């Protein structure tokens, strides 16, 4: 019996059409739009001016506080504008626009760094470097990694969990990364284990990625103290709390963190970024993005510079097919449709999904028939139909006491609802209001 989390969950069609496509290098974008707010928390502060020449990897926006992150120039070129550009939220946000210098060789040289396994830095220096080089959680939430790693003294930690679940349908970015950079990821894990003084690590991978599990099993030795755990395919297993429950059978308390049960969870993408930063001094300026869709000519995985407009990505795979209705930033479950293709790729973009006309529409919402499907599938054990009604009717106090804030917004309830009720829309709205209420109370 494969491990999984016990409560709720769904199994949508996987559609991992790009899982056999190796990660290609994306053509260099002519212009990059780098938003200053690519992470959760305070936006970074711009430190370059218009017409400044920037080199690849130069800090262009400095971290605006503890809960913030540095942003580096993904290309060598000239800053042409500091302007507001529509980002994935649909609103115009501050951006640094850099025109790529096509004559600069550093943009094209692609050094194949040799694998470096010896860790030379001290734990403190490692954490400092993660902060300096702008590493954030690449699983999607873009939580600044140094915040996650700054652990108060006295906290007992016994497991480092590596999230290689990638439970979202369509996406294969983490899968390909695990296949192609397995050795680097293992070194990355060792770096974190050393920095945090943790002696056990588990890599959680869903069973539909058998090749990745095999690859890891071949590399690791007994002395590594790294375990590979195959998990049953179930969405949303990639959620921190679900993963901890599945692997260690520990329940993360509500409103708590995995830290409370002695665990720290990191995505494989983040681990690879940490490896690059610590061993080769490379800031987070590039990430793997799956560009996919059933009607696309040539869907694949790409190494994409942060700030590349999505137009470039779409052109790379052969342009938008006829009858395209939606372009989603992220996977089909938790991703968000974008307003137009000028939106740039940010640190949190794990995939671009092109959806055609026949699959893009939601059903007409009808009355709740009290079937209880949403309650069955909720991985957090909530009652989505109730939370929706409470948010709709403005009963936020009650919603708060019904634990609306523990919702992880996985969208399983909206997915299964036979009446096509907009459950998650209202729950998100309620969460927003309750969050505001809570902050004003404090």
């Amino acid at each position, binding site marked *: 019996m494969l491990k999984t989390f016990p409560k709720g969950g769904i199994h949508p069609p996987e559609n991992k059409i790009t899982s056999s496509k190796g990660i290609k290098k994306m053509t260099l974008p002519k212009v990059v739009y780098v938003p200053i707010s690519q992470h959760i928390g305070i936006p970074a502060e711009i430190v370059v001016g218009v017409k400044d020449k920037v080199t690849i990897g130069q800090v262009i926006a400095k971290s605006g506080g503890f809960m913030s992150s540095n942003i580096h120039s993904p290309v060598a070129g000239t800053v042409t504008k500091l302007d507001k550009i529509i980002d994935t939220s649909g609103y115009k946000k501050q951006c640094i626009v850099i025109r790529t210098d096509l004559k600069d060789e550093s943009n094209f040289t692609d050094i194949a760094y040799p694998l470096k396994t010896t860790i030379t830095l001290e734990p403190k220096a490692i954490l400092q470097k993660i902060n300096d080089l702008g590493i954030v959680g690449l699983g999607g939430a873009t939580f600044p990694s140094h915040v996650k790693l700054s652990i108060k003294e006295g906290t007992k930690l016994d497991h480092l969990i590596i999230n290689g679940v990638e439970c979202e349908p369509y996406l294969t970015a983490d899968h390909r990364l695990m296949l192609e950079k397995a050795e680097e990821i293992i070194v990355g894990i060792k770096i974190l284990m050393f920095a945090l003084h943790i002696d056990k690590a588990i890599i959680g991978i869903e069973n539909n990625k058998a090749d990745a599990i095999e690859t890891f099993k071949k590399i690791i030795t007994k002395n590594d103290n790294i375990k590979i755990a195959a998990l049953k395919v179930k969405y949303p297993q990639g959620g921190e709390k679900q993963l901890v429950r599945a692997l260690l059978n520990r329940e993360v308390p509500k409103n708590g963190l995995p830290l409370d049960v002695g665990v720290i969870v990191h995505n494989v993408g983040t681990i690879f970024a940490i490896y690059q930063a610590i061993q080769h001094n490379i800031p987070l300026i590039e990430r793997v993005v799956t560009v996919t869709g059933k009607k696309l000519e040539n869907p694949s995985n790409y190494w994409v510079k942060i700030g590349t407009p999505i137009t470039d990505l779409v052109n790379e795979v052969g342009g938008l097919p006829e009858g395209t209705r939606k372009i989603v930033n992220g996977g089909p479950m938790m991703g968000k449709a974008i307003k*137009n293709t000028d939106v740039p790729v940010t640190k949190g973009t794990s995939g671009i999904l092109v959806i055609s006309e026949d699959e893009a*529409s939601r059903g007409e919402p009808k009355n709740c028939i009290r079937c209880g499907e949403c309650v069955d599938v909720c991985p957090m054990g909530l009652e989505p139909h109730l939370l929706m009604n409470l948010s709709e009717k403005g009963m936020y106090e009650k919603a708060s006491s019904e634990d609306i804030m523990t919702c992880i917004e996985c969208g399983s309830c909206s997915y299964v609802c036979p009446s096509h009720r*907009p459950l998650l*829309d*209202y729950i998100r709205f309620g969460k927003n209001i309750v969050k505001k209420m809570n902050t004003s109370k404090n």
Partner: protein
Amino acid sequence: MSDSVLYSVLLLASLGVVAAIMLYVVSKKFYVFENPLIAEVDELLPSANCGGCGSPGCKAFAEKLVNTEDISDLFCPVGGNEVMKQVAAVLGKEVTEKDPELAVLRCQGGCDVRPKTTEYQGPRTCAISTMIYSGETDCQYGCLGDGDCVKVCKFDAMYMNESTGLPVIITDKCTSCGACVEACPRDIIEMHPKHKRDLKIFVGCLNEDKAGIAKKACDVACIGCSKCQDICPKDAVLMVNNLAYIDPLICTLCRKCVEVCPTNSIIETNFPPKKVKKVEPEAEANVESINLKTDA
């Protein structure tokens, strides 16, 4: 036969007497004193329970009026000065007179001038739309058209215009309670002083984008050209973030700015039609020349 009737009458009568005594004792024992003034003031208030005064309902406002010593900053927008004067007479306190206000909609980006570029299929409320998206058009400042303001209006003073997709305020019914102002997540509805005959001039746009972007998103957007500021004889126009704002307290309703606005984003309401016909072709010529400039 007659005995049983007598007994039952006696029994019921005695029960009634006992109950009456009990009620009397309880009502004396648990008597709660309420200032009779509260009921009197409550009578005067319009009983709309709209919350426009800041209190949850008219009764609560009456209590507040009676219990607060200085009521000069309390005001019932629905009843207006007349009701407040009566309240002042009853309470023997002083009230400040306020100019009557009206809600105005500071967006005129209807379907015909502001094309939809995306489609959102979620629940149709403005609050959710703003949280998730910047709306279905390219203007992230304008009206979302989902009618949260209409839903909260307790006086039936608003309706959605089907053809433009914008809410309409029926000025005769508007009591300036401010519920729509609160409900609008974009702060498009504003309270303006109700001038004589309900004359108003205001900028019907909140778009802070630069001219080109704003104009592309909406034909009647304020492009921040400052023409209205230049022509205003009273310095009533403020230019902030590529957007004009006409201070309704300074504006003397001379209508000069309306004529010069190249995008027709300044709205005038309830003015009589213009008498001078010669001005019109000139104004049109103006529009054309300026359009050319923004295009280049």
